[in-house]
């Protein structure tokens, strides 16, 4: 078995004086600079508050939403799977009996504390009946008070899925 | 460029370039310590040969006007001192070879530093200008500081180096202050010119020159470890590695005296008497206090260090006599330097040879019964001790004879008596060693390092030289004896006054 000597890179004189590499690097950056200077429109930066992002995909994990059945009632059956799966323990559910007979239980209270949520998507995975989702497309959630970050059931239900609306 | 003038500095150039070459070679791991010793030896030897070439030839004085504008001078005086310094270095290398090889921690830069310090010392002897002299002094001292602390795993070494450095720098400041004051007084720092200016100033106010000269003397007294500045000596000598101690004791003093004699004899000659009383006190104190220090020591190395203070006192006796009997006194300084150089180099060298293998033999007690184990070494050590004590038949005796004669000649009989008193005290601590070596049964017999290598040979040669310097004469034609040394010393002294 012959020994194969692999030549190390960067040992040639040209490499060792570094200057060519430095200059080529600087040439690259200069090219970028000049191009962007001559025409700022090449820059893809959004002027954010005025311009909104238009490339949020459906797989983007935005703020949660609770889906509804066709009848408009909440799909959630208060099985606590999401709350159990949640690593941040930010989901609080209180169940109550469902009297309309469609199902056994429904949530009395369903609150998500966004200040604790880590947006892992575990709840979505855990949900057996596709009741909780994160495809609302809402990427910025701003509030003035701490209390405003507690998403109640009503708010969650009011978030519309972006599905179909974008792209 | 005047090549002929430059050629007078050939020994200096050889040593300087040798130092640089060794420095450049030192990172090469392949070259062994022995090789380095050998190389150093060769450089010094070549320089010595160059120097000896001028030894007889150059009864002249070259201020080297064309190349360095009187900053350096080359005359038989400097050639003589060069020869002393170089032989000192040569002997140090030869004697220390065993030590260096045994104590492997000596990195190779050591030899470069060693050559640099020799270079500085030689330069000091050649210096013809105060600041040049100071730089030369600093080159020599800085290398010595480092050499002292070279084995920095040993705290004692580093501390010795530190003490030496602080005090040495302080004394350097005084040297500079002295130069500044002299410059203020006469407007020049070139040696011959200072003399002329001082001559012209005679009768006017020369207090600046006097104070400046005093400060120069302070430095000088410090470096030769005379009385008020002697405290460092013992600790530094003790802390330094033995060959370095030998080198310091034997050669550095030579170089310092080489310079200070030049300035005192030539330039500050008209005002030298001013310091006589001061010197009187200093010498007395140096002799007595040095003797006291030597008596109370228990380590041999420290004793030798302390006794070097006493020897400084002897030399100063001759130094103070210069005013009246310039020729014989100054040549006696030179001669005593040779004597002390040989004896102390022999003693330190031998001890370094003995201690190279183990750390045991450092105190007097360790030498108990030494003669029964190593008769030859004990005999040599005894010879050196006798020479240091100034017993007849050794070069130390002739040196003392010379110095005391000069002192009496100059009318300083009291000083001679003090010197004799110190000698008398010195008998105690030198003979104590001999007594210990011979008169006791040896404690342990097992460690008998064989006499091998070049160091014992060289030490034996020194021992022979010590004896020959005490009895050798013109019986044997063409072989230099005492007269030769005295004559050359005189010659070198005379060359100072060639205008």
């Amino acid at each position, binding site marked *: 078995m012959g020994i194969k000597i692999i030549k190390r890179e960067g040992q040639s004189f040209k490499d060792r004086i570094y200057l060519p590499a430095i200059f080529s690097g600087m040439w690259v950056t200069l090219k970028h600079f000049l191009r962007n200077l001559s025409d700022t429109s090449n820059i893809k930066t959004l002027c954010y508050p005025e311009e909104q992002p238009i490339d949020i995909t459906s797989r983007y994990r935005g703020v949660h939403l609770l889906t509804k059945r066709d009848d408009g009632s909440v799909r959630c059956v208060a099985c606590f799977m999401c709350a159990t799966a949640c690593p941040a323990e930010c989901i609080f559910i209180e169940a109550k009996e469902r009297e309309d007979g469609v199902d056994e239980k429904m949530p009395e209270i369903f609150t998500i504390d966004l200040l604790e949520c880590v947006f892992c998507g575990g709840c979505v995975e855990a949900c057996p009946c596709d009741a909780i989702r994160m495809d609302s497309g809402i990427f910025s959630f701003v509030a003035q008070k701490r209390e405003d970050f507690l998403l109640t059931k009503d708010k969650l239900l009011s978030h519309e899925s972006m599905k179909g609306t974008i792209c | 460029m005047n090549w002929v003038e430059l050629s007078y500095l050939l020994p200096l150039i050889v040593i300087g370039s040798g130092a640089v070459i060794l420095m450049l070679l030192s990172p090469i791991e392949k070259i062994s310590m022995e090789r380095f010793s050998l190389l150093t030896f060769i450089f010094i030897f070549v320089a010595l040969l160059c120097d000896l070439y001028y030894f007889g030839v150059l009864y002249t004085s070259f201020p080297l006007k064309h190349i360095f504008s009187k900053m350096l001078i080359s005359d038989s005086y400097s050639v003589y001192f060069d020869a002393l310094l170089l032989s000192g270095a040569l002997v140090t290398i030869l004697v220390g070879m065993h030590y260096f090889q045994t104590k492997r921690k000596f990195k190779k830069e050591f030899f470069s530093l060693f050559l640099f310090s020799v270079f500085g010392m030689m330069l000091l002897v050649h210096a013809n200008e105060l600041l040049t002299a100071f730089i030369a002094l600093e080159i020599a001292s800085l290398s010595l500081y480092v050499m002292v602390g070279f084995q920095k795993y040993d705290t004692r070494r580093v501390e010795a180096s530190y003490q030496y450095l602080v005090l040495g720098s302080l004394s350097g400041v005084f040297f500079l202050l002295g130069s500044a004051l002299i410059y203020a007084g006469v407007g020049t720092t070139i040696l011959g010119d200072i003399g002329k200016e001082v001559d012209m100033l005679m009768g006017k106010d020369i207090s600046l020159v006097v104070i400046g000269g005093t400060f120069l003397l302070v430095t000088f007294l410090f470096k030769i470890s005379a009385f008020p500045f002697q405290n460092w000596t013992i600790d530094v000598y003790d802390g330094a590695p033995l060959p370095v101690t030998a080198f310091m004791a034997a050669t550095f003093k030579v170089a310092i005296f080489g310079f200070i004699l030049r300035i005192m004899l030539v330039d500050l000659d008209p005002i030298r008497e001013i310091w006589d009383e001061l010197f009187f006190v200093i010498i007395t104190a140096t002799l007595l206090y040095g003797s006291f220090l030597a008596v109370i020591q228990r380590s041999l190395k420290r004793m030798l260090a302390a006794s070097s203070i006493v020897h400084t006192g002897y030399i100063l006796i001759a130094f103070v006599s210069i005013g009246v009997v310039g020729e014989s006194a100054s040549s006696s300084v030179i001669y005593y330097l040779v004597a002390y150089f040989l004896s102390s180099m022999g003693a330190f060298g031998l001890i370094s040879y003995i201690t190279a293998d183990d750390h045991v033999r450092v105190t007097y007690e360790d030498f108990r019964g030494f003669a029964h184990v190593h008769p030859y070494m004990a005999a040599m050590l005894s010879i050196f001790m006798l020479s240091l004590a100034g017993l007849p038949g050794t070069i130390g005796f002739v040196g003392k004879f010379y110095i005391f004669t000069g002192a009496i000649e100059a009318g300083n009989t009291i000083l001679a008596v003090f010197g004799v008193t110190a000698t008398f005290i010195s008998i105690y601590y030198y003979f104590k060693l001999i007594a210990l070596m011979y*008169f006791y049964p040896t404690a342990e017999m097992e460690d008998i390092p064989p006499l091998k290598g070049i160091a014992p040979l060289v030490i034996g040669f020194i021992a022979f030289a010590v004896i020959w310097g005490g009895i050798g004469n013109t019986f044997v034609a063409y072989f230099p004896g005492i007269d030769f040394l005295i004559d050359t010393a005189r010659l070198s002294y005379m060359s100072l006054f060639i205008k």
Partner: protein
Amino acid sequence: MMDIGILSIIIFLPMVVALILLLTPINQNGTRNMAFIVSVIIFCLALFIYTNFQLTGTIQLREFHPWIKAYGINYSLGIDGFSLIVLMLIATLIPSAYLLLWNNNRPKNYWISMLFIQSGISGTLFSLDLILFYFFWEAMLLPVFMIIGLFGSGNRVYSTLKVTIYTIMGSLFMFVSILYLGVAFYYEFGSWSFELSDLVQITTISHGHRVLLFLGFMLAFSIKIPLFPFHTWLLETYSNSPTGGVFLLSSIMAKLGAYALVRFMIPLFPDIFVELSSVFVGLGIFGLVYFGIAAISQHNIKKMFAYSSASHLGFITAGIFSLNVHGMMGSAFLIVAHAMATGGLFLLVGVLERNLGIRSIDGMGGIAAKAPLFTVFFGIMVLCTVGIPGTNGFVAELLIVLGLFKYNAFAGILSALTVLVAASYMFWLFQKAILANSENDVSAMVDLDWKEVLGLLPLSLLIIAMGIYPDLFLYKIEPTIQHYLMEILHVGAKV
């Protein structure tokens, strides 16, 4: 090449032999034999000199070679009558001593040191250059140092250091004085010389300085002799030294001190010599009395002899300083007589010590019965020491007492009385230690063998011969003594 004179041979032969012995692996018996042979050769040479010596007061057999030219230091030798007699003494004593030390079973170094000492002694004796004299004076010391330190007993190292330091202290002041003389000569005559004959001519030194110089020399000699206040090294050194060392110290080196006193002090400082004579006579007589009394109270035989020896040396000193031909002759004679007697005694004590292993007088007794030969020789030496008529000791002491009477009647009486004191303790010793029977066990005592007898015989014969017919020996030194006296009287007249 230089030509080597007979004096140089006497000086350097032992040294060269010693060096050869030192460097060759000859065993101790060989060394001893060689040392003996050398001493015999030297004896023969000395005899040769003795017979060829001319009866003038001048210095003979001069040898002169420049040594350190720059300072006019020369290798300059010569002898006069006084040195001749000391030379003869040494040449005789040393072979005898070797014979008596023969059985002591000493190692090689011992004999080598002895050889070195002999060199040093001869050198000191012959030197006419003061630096050369100083050289040998100090060189003599080292082997003594070695002998005592190596082969001594008791607290030998201490006593070695003590005696060395003492002696060197004295000689260092002498050294300064020598240098001062040399410098004075240089200032007066413009050239360097340390030759005795040159230094004598110095006239410029002031009187006070001359006194100081004189004292500088005297310090060295007094310590060596030892005179009264400088004797403190004596007791320990004598008692701790081996027999050979004591022998050398007491019978030879101490005498050299007295010799040097005459040789150098009188020519160099005749006026001071006269002036201070009273002091030294006083010191000498005081020593005589003091040491005599001290000797009585001793029970260690060595110590007793040490004091006795010191006492006699005080006597010698007093004689030298008595400033007349009797005293000086007597001193010269006593130097010889006492050297023989004391030397013999110390050697015999050595034999005693070797056999019995003790030194205390109380532990001896009844030796006469065991060792008759020993007793005979011991008796002769004791008689000589005491100064019984028929021995040379008597002649010498008589001459000195006479001289002292001339100098000062009181001094003479005192010295004469003290001689009696010496007689008393010596006889007491002889009686108690040797003759009287006692219950002490002296069975270990062995009588002298033929070699020891051979060694002591010449001494005893000489003691008796010199006692009976002193002129035979005195005539050789008389011119010299006259010469010295002339110098003194010359100056004395001026004073």
